[in-house]
């Protein structure tokens, strides 16, 4: 029998504990014969022992426990009194159990010995006898005289029964053990041995420890570290050689002790993984499928609290994979797959996180079916369904009440589950995503933090106090000058980080810290996984490993903290919750939107491509462009505009900046004379120009859905109604080019032939803008609206030098497109650049993982062109 070592170890630990309880219980029972409580506890212990033994197939042990349990139940129910003989035989049973456990521990199997079988028979007979005793006492009121007679008859009868029973049990047990292994020839000597109850002292190799105790130990270790630090400082003052040496040893031992204690909480993920062979086997059998399970990275360690918490979600995902993913053998053979499905459970560490993947080679998720179901169940409308991307569809699976299984089986449940799986994972600070390729399989990827207890964090200050920011939420640190580098629009400040516009929060304002104001130059760029936020802090200290301690119930309603930690000097620092902090942006963004967004303009969810646009007026016309393109906004007096060399210029920050009047290039009415104008500054490659406008209306976070057609003017990408007014989306690159055709021209080597780029993008706005600047840079560009069309173009045989693709597109999104291209031998090596407005480390990594060569933000023209150039070289 090949049990998993770990499970067997667990069983042994538990059994030993059980034996201890039993022994103690019986001793107590001697003192207090009538105690129902003790009997109940004895019964429970024996019962669980029986169950566990049965699970492992330890037949003899199970039988002993079974009969003992039977006797105990009668005692518990008060049917019989705990007489001496009963206690004796039960104690004997405990001794045998002990013996068997010890034997199992050494030999990994049950002993097959006559003395045990003999005892089993004795125990069984005793139990029978008790049954009769009970019947007699309860059923019949037997007169004294007759009672004396009966036992004799009874005895004869029962002796017969005993013999029969003995044979029966022996046979039964032997049969069972024979199945297990060939019966060892029963050694003759054993029979001669006096039938003595074996007395075995069990040695403990594992003990159970209350986690609270470990936590306490960890706290104490922390205190010890602090005390040690003080001693180290003192010893440095005293400069005594002997003292220094002993302090060094103290220091080393302390560190090691702290680490060891931390380790006690860490357990290999194998603890969870190892239960899956059984689950998979049973499930596959029940469903008539063949599944090969591979476990990888079982030694990856996680905090035990996390191990506990991921058990259920993992079980659910494994069940799903077998139930819905892997096809029945016949079906697999038909489509040319191996008859046996493969399920891989893989764990590995990545940064401060552990990644768990559940990968199957089954039929994959039928995205179309998900779509139909989503419409059917009202998750999305028909209209939305046409635009929705694969990723978005897959995310619907995590919505409550969504299940794609046609036949709801008992095993995979009724669509309750995936939502629970997701929320459970998120509760742990983790994330979950699905990748699926139709017909090839599905991979579910879960990312969870290594430990909830110790995390790396950046220490920052606000006022006199320190705060810790978990490293996982950290993107980068920027030194800035708030005066110069922030754009202020309405109540919200923004920072422009390499073409991306990021809302900025000031920690001192969030914390309502009214203390002394210091100059803040440290901007911490945070990520919530969905968006970036800049957090302006007073000071930035080093990164440290911190021990997370929960805050009391008093602070549950404050979203910006996730706990507190004790710093090296014994003082406390609060741990900031980045998602909680991001809500502060949420509120002010809503305010901005409320102000400028009419009911007509659709606000999309954050998962769609949204950008911040700036709305401004030129004369009576309202225009818009992405804020990220603008380097600065400022006001100038009309008198500052000078004319030089036939061009209007201003002197701005010791620089001559040409001023562009949009009405000269677009069909707009000219700006009437004003005392002062707003200027949008546009800088690229060190060259700056300014665009004159009469009024800044505000900002808006929105998608770039624009209507094309009415304004077919170069420089206009399209229009849209916002706030009841037609807003023209302008192509600033085109306009600048119209103003000065040489503006963007960079000296490049004469090439024989222009390189050809295939560009897939669904947004007309970006399609127009990027196409324009690509052409401006001398490339030939073929534009398509989605992945499917791009693929068709490629398959039609047209040759391209490079592919540029958006990620979020209808019909076929960028991820699928890349997957398809990379799986086609003809296009294995064609360079692919992903352009996106959703910047995120996760997405970037995923894109590169599946085969993209580059990843750029759409609005960063300069970088994108450079990347293209590099890849085409």
């Amino acid at each position, binding site marked *: 029998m090949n049990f998993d070592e770990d499970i067997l170890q667990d069983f042994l630990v538990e059994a030993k504990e059980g034996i201890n309880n039993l022994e103690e219980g019986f001793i107590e029972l001697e003192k207090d014969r009538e105690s129902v409580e003790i009997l109940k506890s004895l019964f429970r212990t024996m019962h669980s022992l029986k169950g566990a033994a049965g699970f492992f197939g330890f037949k003899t042990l199970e039988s002993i426990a079974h009969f003992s349990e039977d006797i105990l139940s009668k005692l518990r129910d008060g049917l019989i009194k705990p007489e001496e003989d009963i206690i004796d035989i039960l104690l004997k049973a405990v001794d045998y159990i002990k013996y068997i456990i010890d034997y199992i521990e050494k030999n990994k199997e049950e002993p097959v010995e006559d003395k045990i079988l003999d005892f089993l028979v004795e125990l069984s007979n005793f139990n029978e006898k008790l049954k009769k005793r009970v019947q007699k006492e309860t059923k019949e009121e037997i007169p004294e005289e007759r009672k004396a007679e009966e036992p004799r008859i009874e005895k004869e009868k029962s002796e017969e029964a005993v013999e029969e029973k003995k044979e029966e049990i022996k046979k039964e047990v032997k049969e069972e053990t024979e199945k297990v292994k060939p019966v060892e020839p029963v050694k003759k000597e054993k029979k001669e041995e006096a039938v003595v109850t074996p007395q075995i002292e069990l040695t403990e190799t594992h003990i159970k420890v209350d986690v609270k105790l470990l936590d306490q130990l960890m706290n104490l270790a922390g205190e010890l570290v602090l005390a040690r630090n003080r001693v180290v400082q003192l010893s440095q003052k005293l400069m005594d050689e002997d003292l220094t040496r002993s302090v060094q040893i103290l220091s080393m031992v302390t560190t090691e002790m702290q680490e060891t204690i931390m380790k006690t909480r860490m357990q290999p993920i194998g603890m969870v993984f190892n239960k899956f062979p059984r689950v998979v086997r049973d499930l596959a059998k029940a469903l008539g499928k063949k599944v090969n399970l591979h476990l990888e990275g079982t030694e990856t360690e996680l905090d035990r609290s996390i191990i506990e918490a991921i058990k259920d979600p993992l079980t659910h995902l494994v069940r799903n994979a077998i139930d819905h993913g892997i096809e029945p053998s016949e079906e697999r053979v038909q489509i040319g797959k191996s008859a046996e499905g493969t399920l891989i459970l893989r764990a590995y560490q990545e940064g401060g996180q552990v990644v768990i993947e559940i990968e199957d080679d089954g039929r994959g998720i039928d995205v179309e079916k998900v779509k139909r179901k989503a419409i059917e169940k009202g998750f999305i409308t028909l209209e939305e369904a046409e635009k929705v991307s694969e990723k978005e569809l897959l995310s619907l699976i995590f919505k409550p009440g969504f299940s794609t299984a046609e036949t709801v089986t008992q095993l995979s449940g009724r669509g309750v589950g995936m939502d629970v799986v997701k929320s459970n994972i998120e509760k742990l600070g983790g994330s979950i995503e699905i990748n699926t390729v139709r017909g090839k399989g599905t991979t579910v990827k879960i990312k969870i933090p290594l430990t909830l207890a110790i995390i790396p964090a950046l220490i920052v200050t606000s006022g006199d106090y320190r705060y810790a920011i978990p490293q996982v939420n950290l993107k980068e640190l920027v030194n800035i000058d708030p005066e110069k580098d922030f754009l202020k629009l309405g109540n919200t400040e923004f920072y422009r980080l390499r073409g991306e516009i990021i809302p900025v929060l000031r920690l001192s304002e969030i914390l309502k810290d009214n203390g002394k104001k210091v100059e803040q130059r440290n901007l911490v760029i945070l990520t919530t996984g969905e968006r970036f936020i800049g957090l302006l802090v007073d000071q930035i200290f080093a990164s440290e490993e911190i021990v997370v301690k929960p805050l009391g119930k008093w602070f549950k309603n404050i979203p910006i903290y996730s706990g507190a930690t004790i710093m090296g000097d014994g003082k406390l*620092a609060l741990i900031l919750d980045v998602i909680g902090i991001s809500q502060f942006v949420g509120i002010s963004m809503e305010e901005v939107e409320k102000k400028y967004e009419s009911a007509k303009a659709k606000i999309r969810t954050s998962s769609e491509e949204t950008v911040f646009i700036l709305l401004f007026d030129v004369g009576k016309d309202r225009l818009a462009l992405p804020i990220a393109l603008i380097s600065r906004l400022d006001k100038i007096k009309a008198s500052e505009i000078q004319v030089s060399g036939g061009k209007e210029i201003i002197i701005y920050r010791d620089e001559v900046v040409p001023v562009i009047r949009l009405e000269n290039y677009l069909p707009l009415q000219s700006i009437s004379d004003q005392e002062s104008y707003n200027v949008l500054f546009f800088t690229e490659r060190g060259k700056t120009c300014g665009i004159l406008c009469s009024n800044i209306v505000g900002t808006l976070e929105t998608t770039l859905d624009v209507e094309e057609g009415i304004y077919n003017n170069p420089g206009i990408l399209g229009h849209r109604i916002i706030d009841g007014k037609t807003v023209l989306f302008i192509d600033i690159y085109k306009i600048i080019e119209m103003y000065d055709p040489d503006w963007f021209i960079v000296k490049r080597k004469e090439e024989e032939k222009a390189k050809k780029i295939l560009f897939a993008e669904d947004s007309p706005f970006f399609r127009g803008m990027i196409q324009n600047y690509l052409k401006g840079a001398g490339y030939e560009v073929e534009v398509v609206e989605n992945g499917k069309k791009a693929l068709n173009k490629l398959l039609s045989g047209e040759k391209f030098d490079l592919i540029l693709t958006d990620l979020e597109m209808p019909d076929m999104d960028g991820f699928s497109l890349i997957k398809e291209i990379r799986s086609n031998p003809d296009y294995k090596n064609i360079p692919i650049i992903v352009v996106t407005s959703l910047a995120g480390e996760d997405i970037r990594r995923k894109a590169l993982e599946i085969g993209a060569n580059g990843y750029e933000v759409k609005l960063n023209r300069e970088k994108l062109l450079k990347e293209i150039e590099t890849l085409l070289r």
Partner: protein
Amino acid sequence: MELAKKENIALETKKDKALDYAQAITMVTFYIGDFLLGIPAERVLEINKEIEITPVPLSDEYILGIMNLRGQIVTVIDLAKKLKVNFEVTPKLNLIVKDEGEASVSFVIEEIGEILEIFPAKLEKTPDKLEGIAKEYIKNVYQLPDRLLLILDVEKIIQ
């Protein structure tokens, strides 16, 4: 089983009597403004002078912050504010109070009063005329020779 039941009953009646004759309860007393307040000594974990409070911005007004008690995070409560007593406490001492199943909390006080033995039988209902303090947090009052001791309803305060 029968026997066990009887025993239980016997025990309970004993307890009732105990209440009547009252073994004295030890009370830790302290002042907040003019009020003399008391907490059963069994609820008090310790009293110490480690006043290093880290404020928690955005928390309720009566919460002064958190402190480090040998590796435990302890929430520090300003009793004067919680009890709505018009008095500015200058934190000098921590009265650490146990909270079953949760981390302890600290009531900061200026000065510790006497440790008193009181008799439960002599506890009285909180008088209606008591003013200047939130009555809902006062469980009972106890007449001392020279003044009134207000027994705090610790459960309610740290609820």
